């Protein structure tokens, strides 16, 4: 009974296993990135970047049809272009990074919708926006898994300066070195590039909009369970995995669209965390534990 409900769908159907593998890989890369985005107060940056990759993916689609390679290259190119342009404008002018990001991603999004609606049908747009997790082919799966592997390795390499850059950028500017550019900028750009790659990898599976959900929702929920950054990253990965499994099963049993089901499952975990998390949740603030003597 329990086996039929929870295990059998994955054992019996190859497409369910593929979907699961893809979502697990996304969770491993996306969880830590999401936590860092929250800590850097860039929670909405993922959303902005997800819109920003749309025109590149659309152009790739127009040039080569539903070609993974073309759409990936296009998405990465526009995502990085928007990130770099926004970074340059915010460094060269007093405009803050979130504001210049907003400007560039809106331009990019307008361009993307224009391209898609001029040449493609509305079905294509839905595919780009909401993905097709139940139809992952080998190439897409390989891309997603490679991106999460690279993400985890690169994060491990830049971890220490990245954390210091979040906490006290002035300190890293003083001691970091790396010439006039500064180690802080190098680390920041690398980090943004990782976010772009994960969004592009994920949009095959979940679509540009939904992949942000799988990166951000577990990360925001994680804040209520651990007081250290590594702890939050670990629980974010776990939440991502749980949401993926739950969402895929819901989609299987009740014919719900898979990527929405996954995001809603992650949303459920978030609400649960806000209400009943261990630190600073609603429940934690209602229960007054006996205080210590010192």
């Amino acid at each position, binding site marked *: 009974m329990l086996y039929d409900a929870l295990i059998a769908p994955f054992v019996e159907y190859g497409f369910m296993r593929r979907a699961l593998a893809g979502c697990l890989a996304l969770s491993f890369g996306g969880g830590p990135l999401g936590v860092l985005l929250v800590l850097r107060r860039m929670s909405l940056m993922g959303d902005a970047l997800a819109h920003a990759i749309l025109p590149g993916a659309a152009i790739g689609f127009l040039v080569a049809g539903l070609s993974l390679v073309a759409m990936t290259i296009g998405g990465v190119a526009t995502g990085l272009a928007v990130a770099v342009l926004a970074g340059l404008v915010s460094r060269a002018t007093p405009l803050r990074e979130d504001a210049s990001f907003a400007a560039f991603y809106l331009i990019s999004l307008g361009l993307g919708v224009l391209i898609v609606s001029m040449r493609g049908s509305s079905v294509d747009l839905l595919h780009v926006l909401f993905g097709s997790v139940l139809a992952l082919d080998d190439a897409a799966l390989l891309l997603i898994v490679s991106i999460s592997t690279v993400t985890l390795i690169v994060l491990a390499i830049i971890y220490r300066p990245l954390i*210091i850059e979040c*906490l006290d950028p002035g300190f890293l500017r*003083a001691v970091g070195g790396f010439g006039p550019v500064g*180690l802080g900028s190098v680390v920041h750009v690398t980090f943004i590039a990782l976010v772009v790659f994960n969004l592009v990898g994920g949009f095959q599976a979940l679509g540009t909009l939904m992949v942000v959900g799988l990166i951000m929702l577990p990360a925001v929920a994680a804040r209520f369970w651990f007081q*250290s950054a590594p702890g939050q990253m670990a629980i974010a990965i776990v939440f991502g995995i749980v949401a993926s499994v739950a969402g895929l099963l819901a989609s299987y049993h009740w014919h719900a669209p898979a990527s929405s089901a996954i995001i809603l499952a992650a949303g459920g975990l978030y609400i649960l965390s806000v209400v009943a998390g261990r630190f600073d949740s609603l429940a934690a603030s209602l229960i007054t534990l006996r205080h210590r003597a010192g």
Partner: protein
Amino acid sequence: MAHDHCSHTHTHRSSRDQAPAPGIRLDNLTVAYRRHPAVHHLSGNFAPGSLTAIVGPNGAGKSTLLKAIMGALRPATGRIEIAGINRRDIAYLPQISEVDRTFPITVLDLVAMGLWRRCGAFRRIGRDQLHRVNDAITTVGLSGLAERPISTLSGGQFQRALFARMLLQDARLLLLDEPFTALDMKTTTDLIDVVKHWHGENRTIIAVLHDIDLVREHFPQALLLARSEVAWGKTEDVLTGTNLLTARRMCEGFDDNAPFCDHQAA
């Protein structure tokens, strides 16, 4: 047994203690925001090994001067010469508001950031290093709080933690931006002891301060700043009633239509 990569630190350190402290020469320095000078044609010397307080009204350019010395702001005119050290051998204590105090990190990890010059981005923090981190935490009076997240610290405790980080940085030039603002007596006294200890170790120290009595009591040198220099030298000669009044008068807001400065032509 993993000997850490930095175990030669102690010999290294004693040789550095005998190294001469850096001197700083300001040569006609102007630092401007949108062409309005925050520091205006300032020239003078911070002697090697000196302990100087920078005093002046709000908007006098005190923090700006520190940031320019640190290299974070570019001079509009003039030069800053720092003799004898690498720019990375400067320790800078920011105003508390510039650090994200909600970040989920423990006191131990925050203080351990001070080891950056020795351990950088990759080298492990070995047992010896951890020992030094804990020593620094004890020195500033935070023993027992090493594993606390920094978000749970009071303002005074947090400032103590930043001082512990500076202890580990072991820099030759120390720049402190309002280190004692909003601290209680006990914390201020403890941290001044740390500063005085540094002063005995052949380091050059520059601190931005607001408490005139505290400067008179503990700082041998003072620079009274109101964008331009009002007085610079021995504290008792600098902090006179007339000078302080002059400083207050000189520091009255930006004039949007101020004429262009022709100081250099003169």
